[in-house]
């Protein structure tokens, strides 16, 4: 299962992580490719501070103007994290450790790294590497490989 994560809202990051972990639990190989804002999920200084999107998220059932008020994202994130703990969902740093220990490969997108002026040392230490999109496609060759874009 090849999963591309292009966003870093908590809802997106968790979707990608649960899918990757779920694949490994079934004995399926899984690799994650972090591109654009998805890079935040493996950025050392950012991965602990990811938020849920309260604006532009129709499922929040909240007027956009309210969602945009200061502190709303933090509040929604806090509430969501509380619910996640109840269902035994780990926080992002612990989840990354679980993925690595389970054999999930983590790749950063070279173009997005360059665009955001990120360096290898800014990223999660156990990252498997920095790839071009072509490199990632190469890794996805073969019959029966599925690719997801989040």
């Amino acid at each position: 299962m090849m999963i591309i994560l292009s966003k870093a809202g908590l809802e997106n990051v968790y979707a990608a992580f649960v899918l990757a972990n779920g694949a490994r639990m079934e004995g399926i190989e899984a690799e994650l490719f972090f591109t654009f804002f998805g890079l935040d999920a493996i950025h050392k200084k950012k991965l602990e501070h990811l938020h849920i999107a309260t604006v532009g998220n129709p499922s929040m059932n909240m007027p956009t103007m309210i969602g945009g008020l200061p502190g709303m994202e933090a509040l929604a994130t806090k509430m969501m994290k509380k619910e996640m703990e109840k269902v035994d969902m780990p926080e992002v740093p612990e989840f990354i450790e679980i993925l690595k220990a389970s054999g999930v490969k983590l790749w950063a997108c070279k173009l997005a790294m360059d665009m955001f002026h990120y360096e290898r040392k800014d990223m999660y230490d156990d990252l498997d590497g920095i790839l071009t999109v072509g490199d990632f496609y190469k890794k996805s060759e073969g019959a029966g490989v599925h690719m997801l874009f989040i």
Partner: protein
Amino acid sequence: MEKIIAGKPIMVNEEGFMINFSEWDCDICEELAREMEIDLTDRHWELINYVQGEYKNQSPLSIRKIGKSGVVDIKEFYQLFPNAPLKTVTKISGVPKPASCI
């Protein structure tokens, strides 16, 4: 359905998980492990004991929980049971398949 495991007729579900934990014994465990190409070591048995203990306590299992069990970490868990570890360990332990996504 019924399946002959280690010479005994055992009730299993369509995925091969045992239905009555009380029917489980070490011979069954070893035969189920062989079916899944696993050579049981002392480390495997420690984990099987843990999994059965959790089942008896009605405590749901997850990968995260196994990682915090103090018996193995997640890396070793995948080394002991390389293919679908949580499903494999529960199956050979004679307990139901965990309904966990994590």
